[in-house]
């Protein structure tokens, strides 16, 4: 297998883009990434997306985007793992380059959610769960995470106020992230007074509904060394799945798929959790931030809240967790989110993250979750000197 590097990065602002559809939004990110990579000959396009079919009536997304980006003729297709689509897009692109099948692959993600009603988006996102046996009973995606939040709080004796620290910190981090959806500080009190969605989850515990597109260019590491001096290697990557039906899992205060994917990715990169300098984790709901930190080995079980309070994961901490503001405050254009995370961590390792730069990181981690921990991709990125 060949080693794989990231050589180009393109992002759009996360938020509402009423003036742009899937193609216009994707074009913006794709062209930036391709130009950033020095305009190589792109041979394949892999697109992470969840809802193009259910909310935008659009299948054949790969062909549409390739055509619109002036790349008609190339291999192009969408990969889907619900909110974890971006992570599996990276994995797919990695496989294509590592195998030797393609040299330059554009891995992108795009999502348009803001033009549908909240009910429609809630229904579309709930398709990440078991349609016949969870969604059938009216279970929203937020509701499944609410069950997890209650269970976690009871198991580790964590208060509702403690849980609210997560969104407060994420909004603080996002103040320095130029492409974040929110540039607005919030308080614990704001979180606790925001409307309930599914008890105990309130509006400000949830990642927002977002539009956005992100893209990175992958190529063989040896090739990347020739064309660039800021090279980031995808040193480890793995994907794991869990039982689809949440109630079948013995312990819902942890995502087994994260634990398994992380173990494998760490092993592949020959690093350990304590080696990670910067991480972007999948905090679609407050409770997931804490679970992610524990599942990835940055904290012992039940102690993530304590460490977060101590500032261990603040920008410049070890590791810095979500200097972008995470899904909560950077925003969550679901199928594109994983690609945003990859781009953000790569920018950190290249020391090109501008105002959100953390001090000289060498090892980065990306965690992308689809469903309620149903499909998890973990990637380890490394700065190559």
């Amino acid at each position, binding site marked *: 297998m060949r080693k794989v590097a990231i050589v180009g990065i393109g992002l759009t602002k996360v938020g509402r883009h009423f003036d742009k559809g899937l193609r216009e939004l994707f074009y913006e990110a794709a062209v930036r990434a391709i130009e950033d990579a020095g305009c190589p000959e792109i041979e394949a396009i892999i697109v992470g997306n969840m809802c193009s079919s259910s909310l935008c009536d659009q299948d054949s997304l790969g062909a549409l985007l390739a055509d619109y980006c002036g790349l008609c003729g190339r291999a192009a297709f969408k990969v889907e793992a619900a909110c974890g689509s971006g992570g599996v897009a990276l994995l797919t692109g990695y496989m294509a380059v590592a195998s030797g099948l393609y040299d330059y692959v554009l891995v992108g993600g795009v999502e348009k959610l803001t033009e549908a009603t909240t009910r429609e988006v809630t229904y579309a996102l709930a398709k990440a769960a078991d349609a016949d*046996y969870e969604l059938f009973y009216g279970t929203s995606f937020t509701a499944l995470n609410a069950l997890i939040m209650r269970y976690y709080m009871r198991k580790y004796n964590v208060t509702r106020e403690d849980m609210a620290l997560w969104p407060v910190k994420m909004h603080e981090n996002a103040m320095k992230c130029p492409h974040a959806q929110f540039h607005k500080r919030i308080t614990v009190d704001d979180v606790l007074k925001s409307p309930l969605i*599914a008890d105990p989850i309130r509006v400000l515990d949830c990642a927002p509904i977002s539009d956005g597109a992100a893209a990175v260019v992958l190529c063989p590491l040896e090739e990347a060394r020739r064309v660039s001096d800021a090279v980031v290697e995808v040193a480890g990557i793995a994907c794991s799945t869990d039982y689809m039906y949440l109630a079948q899992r013995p312990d819902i205060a942890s995502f087994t798929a994260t634990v398994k994917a992380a173990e494998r990715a760490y092993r592949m990169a020959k690093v350990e959790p304590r080696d990670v300098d910067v991480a972007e984790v999948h905090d679609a709901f407050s409770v997931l931030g804490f679970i992610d930190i524990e599942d990835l080995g940055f904290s012992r079980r039940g102690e993530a809240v304590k460490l977060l309070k101590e500032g261990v994961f603040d920008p410049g901490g070890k590791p810095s967790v979500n200097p972008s503001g995470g899904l909560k405050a950077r925003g969550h254009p679901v199928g594109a989110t994983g690609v945003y995370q990859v781009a953000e961590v790569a920018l950190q390792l290249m020391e090109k993250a501008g105002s959100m730069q953390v001090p000289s990181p060498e090892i980065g981690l990306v965690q992308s979750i689809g469903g309620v921990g149903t499909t998890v991709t973990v990637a380890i990125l490394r700065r190559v000197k």
Partner: protein
Amino acid sequence: MASVPRYWRNIPSYYRLVGSKCRGCGRTWFPPRRCCPICYSRDLELIELPTEGVLEEFTIIRTPPSGFDYYTPYVVGIVKLRDGTRVLTQVVDCDVTELKPGTEVVATFRRVREDGDFGIVMYALKFRPKR
């Protein structure tokens, strides 16, 4: 998208809590499976699961997916049945301020939703506190 055959083929599970029992290791599962993820046996039989159990965790849905506005707010929870199988279900006929983990519940046959003005009306077992 709701369809008559899709609803119809799941009726045993919706109406009578039909799940699977693994003949290899004895574990039970809802919804039904063809392969046991623990012992990897493919020798599983369909069985009717017990209709009584204990509420383990629950939430009150206030922003529902489309199609459920009529019932909002409603309670969704995880119930551990008498034989240890866990199911995700709605909990109805209850005072939500009195619901707590450990509340004993029993299955009750209810309407789940209507598929628009002209589609089918779907039913299933939900649970209510035992009196």
